[in-house]
């Protein structure tokens, strides 16, 4: 079985702060990490490799710095790592990104594609389903469990707001998974050592099966019109008082607002 796992390098958004004066993002010193849902997806692939044997290829699109994340994936147990990196991909929205990834998938052998549900820098959850559509594959999103059945089909749990759907899928498909369901393994010591000797393949646009006119900015139907820091609400009152006074303050406010 050949599994492709799509991973993305993202800034750790929990570490991002806003410059209180300029109102802009402070990115300096913010660590780059493997997107958590993608790491969960890699863990699922590696669990399948442990159980039934599989060849796991991690792919990513991004700048050359993503090399370190791909090496982390190799150290966790992935067999091959490919980074799509080319100026032609610059400015891609989710549709153009998924299109580029589809061009790479088309020239690889695969039985299953796994992606994270969403990336913490964009939170769109769009690249997975868009990629599935480009490749004409069935998709299952919000996956919390997947196992291979004797008939070769996959039995998959999909978590909804109010239920879990148990789904059976026949043939090739694409899954997007939740990090919370797949606790990622640590890199092994030997894996880390080896990962630095192994090759992370860097591919440019001419190696994949795409119409180059649909890449990057030109292939992106959405454009960022503007971005701005979130408007800060005027701060309310903060009191450091005794517990008795605190209770009275709360009760009088609740009355004033007609909540009680």
């Amino acid at each position: 079985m050949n599994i492709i796992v799509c991973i993305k390098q993202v800034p750790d958004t929990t570490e991002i702060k806003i410059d209180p004066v300029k109102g802009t993002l402070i990115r300096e010193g913010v660590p780059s990490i493997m997107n958590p849902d993608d790491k969960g997806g890699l863990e699922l692939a590696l669990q399948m490799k442990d159980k039934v044997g599989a060849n796991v290829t991690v792919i990513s699109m991004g700048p050359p710095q993503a090399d370190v994340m791909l090496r982390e994936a190799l150290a966790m147990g992935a067999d091959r790592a490919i980074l799509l990196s080319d100026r032609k991909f610059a400015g891609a929205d989710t549709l153009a990104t998924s299109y580029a990834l589809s061009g790479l998938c088309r020239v690889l052998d695969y039985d299953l594609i796994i992606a994270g549900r969403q990336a913490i820098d964009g939170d769109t959850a769009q690249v997975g389903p868009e990629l599935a559509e480009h490749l004409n594959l069935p998709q299952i999103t919000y996956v919390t469990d997947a196992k291979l059945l004797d008939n070769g089909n996959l039995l998959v749990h999909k978590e909804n707001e109010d239920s879990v759907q148990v789904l059976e899928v026949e043939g090739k498909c694409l899954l997007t998974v939740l990090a919370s369901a797949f606790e990622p393994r640590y890199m092994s010591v030997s894996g880390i050592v080896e990962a630095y000797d192994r090759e992370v393949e860097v591919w440019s646009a001419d190696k994949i099966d795409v119409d180059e006119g649909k890449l990057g900015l030109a292939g992106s139907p959405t454009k960022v019109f503007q971005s701005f820091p979130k408007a800060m609400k005027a701060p309310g009152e903060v009191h450091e008082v005794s517990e008795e006074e605190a209770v009275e303050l709360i009760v009088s406010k609740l009355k004033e607002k007609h909540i009680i």
Partner: protein
Amino acid sequence: MEKKDYKNVFVFAEQREGVIQSVAFELLGKARDLADDLGQKVVALLLGSGIKDQAQTLIEFGADEVIVVDTPELKDYLSEQYSQAVYQIIDDRKPNIVLYGATTIGRDMAPRLASRLKAGLTADCTKLEVKPNKEEELELHSTRPAFGGNLMATIVCPNTRPQMSTVRPGVMQKMQRQPGRQGVVTEFTPIFDTSKFKVKLVETIKADKQMADISEAKILVSGGRGVHNREGFDKLQALADVLGGQVASSRAMVDNGVMPHECQVGQTGKTVRPNLYVACGISGAIQHLAGMEESDFIIAINKDKFAPIFSVADLGIVGDLHKIVPMLTERLRKEMEQ
């Protein structure tokens, strides 16, 4: 076909087990504003099995037309079945704008359709408005949080139609229901390519439904790391009971297994805007604030006077929730008896 030939604002009216979801009515409310600004119509899409008779409800909440697809293939939501049906409607009717709920259904289907239509899609919008561009054409401006809620971005689709967006439940306001409001109901029969139905529903396991949906609550008492454990949440529950509200949680207390995911507020949980939000022992990570800062009145109780939650609180109390919450509960109980 030119951009201006794409007309009307479509709303995917999500239903589950035959019940139209609240987010559908909220989207209709927003679609009504957008359509009025554009001088176009609001069209709701109602797909399912045995749901035809509910079309009038959508009209009373703002739809001018309801396109109904009522067929056994659509009894349960499955990506390919629903995508085929909605794609054929969009391909036939050429809408200007299409809105979906940012739910596990909307976020599964909308990107699939965007890819099939080669259309632009903006996820999890918190604000939608139409504004003229340089050519004086009205286009959709979709504003959404990015970088974990640290930044807001406004997205446009300058060259392609339809313009599509998903919107989280609880963000838009539904309009006042107008009983007897008139509209058109159109039935649509898709032609399914069943050879692409590769995913089969084996069974649906219902979540424990004892918990009411926190995004519907008027009053929420919410707890974070400072609540410590289940016993701490019992104190919050007592306060919620006196106030007639419900208990919610920050991500930290869901990740450590104290509270279930259904009651998580924030970027990866639910967006809530109750009349009263009492944040107890919640420091206020930006991801949490993104899910609750639109609440009408926010009270925060926290030991750390530098906690970011105080920046959004209308009333902040620096103190120990484990003392204050039980005292407040007792005081309110007496108040209510009078």
